[in-house]
C-alpha cells in the first residue's frame, strides 16, 4: 500500500468527502490512518457527549469544519428539562486553546452563550460559517460580536432558535468593508432591525445567495432587497402583507420577475393571500417550499400555488391543505422527496384537516418520497385496522427508501412488524402511544439494520425488549425511552454490561438515587454510545448509571 508518497495519497483523499468513506479509509492501515487524520477537515459529531473536545482535537488536528448536536430530539417537545446539557463553550475554549483553524460551525440543540459566540468570533481568523439550529442561550449581543469580528464571514444562518432580542442593531455591526456574505438567515429573530443597514449590507454583498428575513421586515423593503439581489437562490420573506392594487405590490411583481434563480422559498408568517400570485412566476423552478408558518393561507390558495411547482422536492405545509390538496401535490410534484404536514393548531392536532387518505395519495403519487412528517386526525378503530394493513404497509412498501419515520396513535405490534420487514433503510424512528408489547420494539430493533436513532414515549415496551440485544445500541447513536415499562434495574444491567454506552436517567422528582428499588419504572431514559465515558457536566437531575 505504500507505493505512493504521502502527498499523492493526501491528494487522492481530498476527493473523498463523505464521513463514512473517510472513516473507512482510516481503517485500512496505519499509514492511511495517519494521512487521513491530518488531512481531515470536516467532522460530524451527532452526539456531543460521544466524544470530548480534547480527543476530537487530538484525533483531527486539521479540523476546519465541525458539526455538533446536543440535546436529544425529544427536547423539542419539552421532554428534556432545562440545563440538561449540550454546552458549546467547552468546545470553543478547547479549539481556541489548540489554535484550531476553525472555519465552519454547525450546531443543533446546543446551549450557546453570548460568551461562547464572542470567544468564537475572536479566536478563529478564518471563520466563515455559523449555522445554529434549535439552539438557545444567546442574545443579539452574541450575534453582534460575530458580525463585527468575523471579517471573512460568509454564512450566518439562524434556524428556529430562541434568541433574546436586545435590539442592539447587531446587523449594523457588519463593517462597511464586509462584502463576503453568501447566506444570511435571521427569520427567527423577533425584534426590529435596522432596515437601512440591511439594505446597505445586501447591496454590498454580490455573492449573496440566501436571504431569510424576519417578520419585522416589511413588504416594501422586500421589493428593495430583491432589486439589490436578483441573484438570490433562497428567499425567506418577512411580512408579506400589502394591498395588491398598490404601487409597492407592482414593484414587487417586477422585482420577482428578475429573480429567476430562486429555488427555495419560505417565510410568509404574515401573509395576504391576494398577494400570492406575484410569486407564481418563480414557482416552476422551486425545489423547496416552506409554507408551514403561513397560517393565513387557505387550502385553495395553497393548491393554486403548488400547481405551479412541478419541480418541488421538499414541501413543508400546514394541514389546512386537506386531503384534496394533498391529491394535488401527489399529481403535481412528481419529484417530491420530503413532505412535512404540520397541524394548523399545534396545541390540538386532533382537529387536523388531513386523514390517512391524503397520505396514501402522496405515497402513491410520489415515488421518490423518502422523508415524511404527517399529523393527521384521530382515527376510528376500523380505520386504524385498514391503515395498519394497507396504509403503513403500503407506504413502507412503496417508499422503500424511507429513512425517517414518526408514528403515533393506537397502532398495534403489527405495524412494527411491517416496519421491521420493509423499512430497511430506516435511520430514525420516533414512536409515541403505540404498540401492544415488547414484540413491537423487537421487530424494529431486529429488522431495521440501519437504525441510528430510536426514540419512544408512552409505549408498553419494557425490560425484555430493552435487554434482548444490547449490542445493537453500539451500532446506533442513541435510544430514548420515556413513560414506557422499563425498570431501573434493567437500565443498571444495561449500563453495567455495556461500558461503551452511557445510560442516563432523567429524574424530575425529589427522589434520591440510593433509596430506589430496581423494580421501579423509569420515567425518562436516554442512552448513547460514547468513547469518553460519563460526562462531567450532568446536572443533578440526570443520573449516570
Amino acid at each position, binding site marked *: 500500500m505504500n507505493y505512493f508518497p504521502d502527498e499523492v495519497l493526501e491528494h487522492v483523499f481530498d476527493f473523498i468527502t463523505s464521513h463514512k468513506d473517510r472513516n473507512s479509509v482510516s481503517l485500512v492501515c496505519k499509514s492511511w490512518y495517519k494521512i487521513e487524520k491530518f488531512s481531515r477537515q470536516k467532522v460530524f459529531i451527532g452526539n456531543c457527549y460521544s466524544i470530548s473536545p480534547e480527543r476530537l482535537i487530538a484525533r483531527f488536528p486539521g479540523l476546519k469544519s465541525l458539526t455538533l448536536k446536543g440535546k436529544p430530539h*425529544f427536547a*423539542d*417537545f*419539552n*421532554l428534556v428539562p432545562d440545563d440538561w446539557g449540550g454546552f458549546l463553550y467547552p468546545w470553543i475554549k478547547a479549539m481556541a486553546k489548540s489554535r484550531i483553524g476553525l472555519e465552519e460551525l454547525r450546531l443543533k440543540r446546543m446551549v450557546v452563550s453570548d460568551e461562547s459566540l464572542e470567544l468564537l468570533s475572536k479566536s478563529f481568523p478564518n471563520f466563515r460559517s455559523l449555522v445554529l439550529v*434549535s439552539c438557545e442561550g444567546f442574545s443579539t449581543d452574541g450575534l453582534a460580536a460575530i458580525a463585527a469580528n468575523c471579517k471573512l464571514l460568509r454564512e450566518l444562518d439562524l434556524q*428556529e432558535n*430562541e434568541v433574546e432580542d436586545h435590539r442592539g442593531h447587531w446587523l449594523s455591526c457588519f463593517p462597511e468593508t464586509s462584502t463576503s456574505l453568501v447566506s444570511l438567515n435571521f427569520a*427567527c429573530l*423577533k*425584534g426590529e432591525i435596522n432596515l437601512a443597514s440591511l439594505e446597505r449590507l445586501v447591496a454590498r454583498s454580490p455573492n449573496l445567495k440566501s436571504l431569510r428575513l424576519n*417578520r*419585522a421586515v*416589511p413588504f416594501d423593503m422586500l421589493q428593495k432587497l430583491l432589486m439589490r439581489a436578483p441573484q438570490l437562490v433562497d428567499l425567506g420573506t418577512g411580512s408579506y*402583507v400589502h394591498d395588491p392594487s398598490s404601487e409597492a405590490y407592482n414593484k414587487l411583481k417586477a422585482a420577482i420577475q428578475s429573480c429567476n434563480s430562486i429555488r427555495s422559498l419560505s417565510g410568509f*408568517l*404574515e*401573509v395576504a393571500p391576494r398577494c400570492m400570485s406575484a410569486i407564481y412566476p418563480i414557482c416552476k423552478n422551486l425545489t423547496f417550499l416552506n409554507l*408551514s*408558518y*403561513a*397560517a393565513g393561507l387557505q387550502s385553495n390558495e395553497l393548491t393554486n400555488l403548488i400547481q405551479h411547482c412541478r419541480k418541488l422536492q421538499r414541501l413543508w405545509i400546514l394541514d389546512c391543505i386537506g386531503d384534496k390538496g394533498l391529491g394535488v401535490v401527489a399529481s403535481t410534484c412528481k419529484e417530491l422527496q420530503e413532505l412535512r404536514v*404540520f*397541524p*394548523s*393548531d*399545534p*396545541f*390540538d*392536532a*386532533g*382537529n387536523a384537516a388531513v386523514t390517512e387518505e391524503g397520505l396514501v395519495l402522496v405515497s402513491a403519487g410520489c415515488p421518490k418520497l423518502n422523508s415524511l412528517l404527517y*399529523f393527521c386526525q*384521530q382515527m376510528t378503530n376500523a380505520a386504524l385496522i385498514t391503515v395498519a394493513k394497507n396504509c403503513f404497509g403500503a407506504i413502507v412498501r412503496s417508499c422503500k427508501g424511507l429513512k425517517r419515520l*414518526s408514528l*403515533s*396513535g*393506537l397502532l398495534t405490534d403489527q405495524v412494527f412488524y411491517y416496519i421491521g420487514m420493509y423499512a430497511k433503510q430506516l435511520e430514525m424512528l*420516533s414512536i*409515541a*402511544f403505540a404498540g401492544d408489547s415488547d414484540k413491537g420494539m423487537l421487530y424494529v430493533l431486529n429488522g431495521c439494520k440501519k437504525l441510528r436513532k430510536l426514540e419512544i*414515549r*408512552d409505549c*408498553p415496551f419494557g425490560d425484555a425488549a430493552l435487554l434482548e440485544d444490547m449490542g445493537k445500541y453500539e451500532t446506533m447513536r442513541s435510544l430514548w425511552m420515556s*413513560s414506557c*415499562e422499563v425498570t*431501573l434495574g434493567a437500565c443498571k444491567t444495561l449500563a453495567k454490561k455495556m461500558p461503551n454506552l452511557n445510560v442516563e436517567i432523567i*429524574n*424530575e*422528582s*425529589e*427522589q434520591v438515587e440510593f*433509596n*430506589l*428499588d430496581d*423494580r*421501579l*419504572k*423509569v*420515567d425518562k431514559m436516554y442512552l448513547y454510545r460514547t468513547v469518553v465515558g460519563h460526562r462531567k457536566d450532568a446536572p443533578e437531575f440526570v443520573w449516570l448509571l
Partner: protein
Amino acid sequence: MAKEGLGFEITELRLGLPGGSMTEKSVKKRVFSEISEEEKSNGKSQVVGWPPVCSYRKKNSFGDKDGSKTSKFYVKVSMDGAPFLRKIDLALHKGYSDLATALEKLFGEALRDADSCEFVPIYEDKDGDWMLAGDVPWEMFIESCKRLRIMKKTDVKGFGVLQPREALKGTMKE
C-alpha cells in the same frame, strides 16, 4: 393520539419509595389528568409534549395580524347583571377553552351570585351581527370579534341550554 380506549395510561408511580407516599412528580401527574378530565371528553389531549410539535413552532404558529409582536385584541366584555364592563385581550388566549377560563376569572363572582340561571356567550362581529361564540375557528373568531357579551339564557330566544364554558368549548369543527 392518546384517545378513547387508551385513555391515559400514564403509569401511576414512576420513582418513589415502594409502597410509600406519592412523589411530587406523581402528584403533578394526577393533577394533570384531573385538569385534563374535561378536556378528555372533548378529545383534547393535554399530555406534556403532545402533539409533538416543536416548541419553537408552537410559539410562532399564529401570525400576528398587524405586524408588531405586541399586537393586541382588546375587546369589551359585558355580562348581564354585572356592574362593570371588562376588557380582555383575545390574543393572549389559545382557544375558546382558554377564553372560558379567563371569563370565569373576570366574572366569577357575578356568575356565582346569579341565581341558578344560565348564560350564553355571544359576540358582535365586524358586520355588526350578534353571533354565538364557538362556531368558527379561533383565529377567525379573534379577527372578527368586536365585543363580547355574556347573556342570560332567559333573555335569549332559540338558544340551547348551555353554560358559558360548555358553549365556548363545544365542538368547533366536529
